[in-house]
């Protein structure tokens, strides 16, 4: 993801990244850091089963947390018994052990479009400034042949020469009456 240098936009990035990552614990597994939305620095061993949050793949190849603490291991043992005995918090903990984001978290809208549109308009504006400078400093003077008086004389000359008399301009001029048809 492109990191824009502006501080304001950087703030947007940080806010968006922290909104997306609701889990405070980033567990390492297989010696690799699980990829977050903002960190792309570590290489990932793609020959190992990977974890990802995808709406169309609800059960990824591996659990999110591979390396469990002792309390998590004991909770996993408790999971082998009747699930009705688990409290709500334990069930949520088990879910978070296996998955990083819930479906609603995955589908969260971000404000990235504002960054994108802002960038587009900034560059369009900058281009507009360039074009305006070019018009002032680069373009030559407006030719005198664009003046209305010259244009009239030019048109009269065209009619006198019978330019395009069949279907073009002279065919539209009524020579007897001296006006347009």
């Amino acid at each position, binding site marked *: 993801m492109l990191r824009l240098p502006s501080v304001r936009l950087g703030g947007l990035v940080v806010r968006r990244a922290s909104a997306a990552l609701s889990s405070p614990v980033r567990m390492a597994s297989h010696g690799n850091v699980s990829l977050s939305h903002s960190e792309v620095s570590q290489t990932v061993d793609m020959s190992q089963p990977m974890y990802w949050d995808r709406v169309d793949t*609800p059960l990824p190849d591996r659990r999110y947390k591979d390396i469990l603490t002792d309390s998590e291991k004991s909770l996993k043992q408790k999971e082998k018994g009747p699930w009705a005995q688990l409290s709500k918090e334990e069930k949520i903990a088990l879910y978070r052990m*296996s998955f990083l984001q819930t*479906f609603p978290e995955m589908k969260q809208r971000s404000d990235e479009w504002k960054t994108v549109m802002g960038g587009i308009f900034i560059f369009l504006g900058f281009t507009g400034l360039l074009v305006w400078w070019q018009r002032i400093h680069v373009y030559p003077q407006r030719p005198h042949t664009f003046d209305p008086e010259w244009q009239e004389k030019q048109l009269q000359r065209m009619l006198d020469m019978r330019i395009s008399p069949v279907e073009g301009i002279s065919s539209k001029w009524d020579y007897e009456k001296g006006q347009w048809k």
Partner: protein
Amino acid sequence: FQNFASRLSCIIVCFPAPLASRCYSHGKVETDEEFDSRWVTYFSKPDIDAWELRKGMNTLIGYDLVPEPKILDSALKACRRLDDLASAIRILEAVKEKAGPHKDIYPYLIQELQPTLTELGISTPEELGIDR
């Protein structure tokens, strides 16, 4: 070849041959009941392993349909055999997502699955408060 494929799918229960998606004009079209029972059988395998559960679920979610309650029932029981509560909750989230804009499908599914949910002690995402 069609006969061989259908016999093969009967023998090898763990891999459902996608007969319904073949584009033969002369071939047999699988009925909804056959589709449902094929998937119920898939998840009902007593010694199903975690990979098969994941593969089955991901494939099922890939189809352009919301699975019938009996298929999900079978899948949830498979989660129980594998001691995997997280996957069971994930399955409920996934089918809610599959229903898309049709908001009345998911409550119907939960209503149909309620006996199994209480029997196995599975909480819905709503009960756990993770549906926001």
